[in-house]
């Protein structure tokens, strides 16, 4: 493919982008030919989204070059990128809900008549023509807020077609689509391809990538790991590139000293998020929950932490059934949750490190009516040391710390409550590689100290590395439970894609 005489529609060379504390892109090369679907693959945090934002003019690269038709260009805004023919279909929809689909399609460039009047006839004619080309069943007059997510995505795609696009970037486009909607989307992509448009397709769903793409480029930890021709490769090779054998998958081999079952869940349901979920976790072990985003894992954790009411089912702590109606009651039962979204759910960003750690127990850390500064300092120092939190001072507001240190503060917050069960949702999201393994070791260590640990993760190597047992979830159901010894990547991938293995429970 690379030696075709055509020149690439778009080429990126040696792109470097750093954020405070993170090197998000480290010399990435990438190109897409006209009429090619080039898949961009990588785990969460591998740099896909950053690369895309560079492509769309939303970020400026620190180093490297962007070339369109082999001419170097500078794109400082999405509008400039669009003018160059590079259009991004966002993962998070960037539509205005109270406007019509047509107005959204031509947002910022509404066709006008005199006096600044919108030329509705032209607007609707043009947008309906585009929507028709996309086989959409709704018309441009409809208000976007009334459209389904899939149809809203169609509006996004239609927006890309208003210009003579050379390159269209799809960012995880199928995340919220049903199977039949996916078929429509793939038709559109193939249609674009036939017109000679270069397609960048970002996803972590292997099946889609192998159906659609011509080539696959893999990113890992912000670096370029290679480009493969889809026809000449297989899932195994791609996975290997994506996960990287360099990553230490070994765990400490000493068998865990298992204690009693601390937390047991029987037939827990909360329609439509998850149904009939049963599992148990013992002191001294790490139970991994693996599945795609939206498989219901986070919602189970929230239920266990008293943030959702289940429809039916039982939760038992130390064998006794319990009602968990609020986080307070969860905490008093010894259940702690390190939430998925650190900045929104885990931390009060403008508060100091110390105050964040002591927040759940501030009511009890008192001498007389006052918060005891001494007791607070003691706890802070203890967990700063234990978790090796790097912060210049206890006064430091947590907002400026690195992701890894922030995560340690959230973990420290809950360890200081002396919990029995520690639920950790996406422990290393947005954390750089070095700190990742630190957090992984920490989780193993905590189990060894007798905590019952539940780790929820979308990253396979992470689950494989930290868990003693793994629960695979698909569409709100537990598909299969593995022990660390008999799990393979293949069987895990099958389980979370909804393929039930023969020997599944």
């Amino acid at each position: 493919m690379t030696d075709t005489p055509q020149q690439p529609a778009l080429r990126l060379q040696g792109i470097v982008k750093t954020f405070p504390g993170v090197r998000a892109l480290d010399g990435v090369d990438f190109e897409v030919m006209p009429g090619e679907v080039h898949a961009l693959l990588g785990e969460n945090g591998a740099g896909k989204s950053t690369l895309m934002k560079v492509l769309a003019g939303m970020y400026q690269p620190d180093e490297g070059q962007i070339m369109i038709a082999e001419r170097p260009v500078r794109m400082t805004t999405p509008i400039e990128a669009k003018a160059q023919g590079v259009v991004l279909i966002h993962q998070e929809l960037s539509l205005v809900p109270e406007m019509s689909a047509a107005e959204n399609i031509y947002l910022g460039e509404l066709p006008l008549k005199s006096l600044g009047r919108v030329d509705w006839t032209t607007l609707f004619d043009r947008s309906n023509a585009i929507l028709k080309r996309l086989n959409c069943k709704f018309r441009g007059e409809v208000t976007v807020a009334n459209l389904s997510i899939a149809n809203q995505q169609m509006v996004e795609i239609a927006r890309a077609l208003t210009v003579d696009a050379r390159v269209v970037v799809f960012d995880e486009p199928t995340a919220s689509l049903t199977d039949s909607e996916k078929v429509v989307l793939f038709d559109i992509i193939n249609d674009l391809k036939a017109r000679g448009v270069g397609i960048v397709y970002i996803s972590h769903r292997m099946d889609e990538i192998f159906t659609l793409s011509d080539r696959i480029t893999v990113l890992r930890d912000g670096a370029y790991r290679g480009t493969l021709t889809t026809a000449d490769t297989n899932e195994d090779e791609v996975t290997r590139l994506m996960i990287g054998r360099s990553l230490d998958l070994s765990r400490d081999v000493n068998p865990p000293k298992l204690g009693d079952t601390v937390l047991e869940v029987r037939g827990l349901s909360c329609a439509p998020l998850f149904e009939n979920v049963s599992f148990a976790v013992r002191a001294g072990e790490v139970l991994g929950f693996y599945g795609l985003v939206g498989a219901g894992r986070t919602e189970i954790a929230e239920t266990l932490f008293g943030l959702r009411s289940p429809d039916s089912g039982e939760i038992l702590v130390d064998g006794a059934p319990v009602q968990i109606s609020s986080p307070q009651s969860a905490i008093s039962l010894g259940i702690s949750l390190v939430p998925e979204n650190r900045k929104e759910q885990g931390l009060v960003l403008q508060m100091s490190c110390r105050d964040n750690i002591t927040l759940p127990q501030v009511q009890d850390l008192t001498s007389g009516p006052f918060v005891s500064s001494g007791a607070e300092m003691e706890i802070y120092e203890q967990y700063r040391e234990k978790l090796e939190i790097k912060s210049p001072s206890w006064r430091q507001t947590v907002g400026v710390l690195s992701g890894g240190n922030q995560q340690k503060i959230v973990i420290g917050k809950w360890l200081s409550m002396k919990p029995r069960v520690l639920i950790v949702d996406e422990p290393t999201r947005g954390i750089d590689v070095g700190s990742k393994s630190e957090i992984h070791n920490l989780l193993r260590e905590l189990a060894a100290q007798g905590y019952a640990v539940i780790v929820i993760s979308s990253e396979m190597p992470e689950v494989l590395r930290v868990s003693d047992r793994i629960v695979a979830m698909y569409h709100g159901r537990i598909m299969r439970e593995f022990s660390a010894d008999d799990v393979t990547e293949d069987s895990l991938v099958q389980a979370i894609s909804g393929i039930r293995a023969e020997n599944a429970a």
Partner: protein
Amino acid sequence: MTRLKAGGPAIAKQGILVAFIVFMIAFSLMSDRFLSLDNFMSVFRQAAIIGVMALGVTIVVIGGNLDLSVGSMLSFATVLVVDLHDKIGPELAIPVMVLATLCLGAINGFLIGILRLNSLIVTLGMLSAIQGLVLIYSGGQNVDIADQSGTWFAIFGRGAMFGIATPIIIFGTMALVFHIIMTTMPFGRKVYAVGGNPTASVFSGIPRSRVVFTTYLISALCVAVAAMILGSRVMGSQNNVGQGYELQVLAAVILGGTSLLGGAGSILKTVLGVLMLAFIQNGLILMGQPYYTQWLVTWVVIIVAVWLDVAAKRGRLFSPIA
């Protein structure tokens, strides 16, 4: 680098103090009557009513909400306590008024804390509803106390202890107590947490609803105290006496650097904001300027103060939006 980052906003946060000192020096130079104990005492006494209310509103705002109903509530409480004074005597009038005002605060707290309705609109609605209540109660008449010299009720607005006017003592004591609550007690910590990040607070087991509810009770309590000072000073009340107070109080709170986004602010800085507004008023009058010139100056001071604060946080003076 972290030092630099922490240092930037720290200087900006002291902006109000710097401005305060600049104003004090300027007024001292321009009027020789400004810098005297008598003048200061009179400024403090004048500031006490807005000051006491601003303490409560500061706590509400740190908790991430607004309270626009304090003005009407002040009318309500003052009319009630003055009217009841002659009917059932001050011993009963005061507790009845305090209780009734707390009920209004509880309604705010219920609608905003428990039902999670938007605080701006709820307290705007309460502003209107309470104003109506006052008018209905008073029949549109103004009220006053018949025996103005014989009642011990005079102590709140007109009395003095150790040569210091009671309003100053009340304001000072409350400021100190609230400062201690907000900086050293668990409740204060929870208010900052809830205002700073309500979701993370819930995820940390903080009873968010109860905390917000309590902030509105505190705000109502402050209004009740302010009403005692006002009623006692005037010995009577117009039925719309508190009209417009809500925004002047809010101006003092904002000037004190409390962020309307919640989670940041300080009682002592609010006191500084209140005093600054009072000194601006006093200084301009001493300089022979018309009374309302103070509002013009307030306009500029508020915007510049908040602008500098915002600019320090984003690291550039002007907003990046095109």
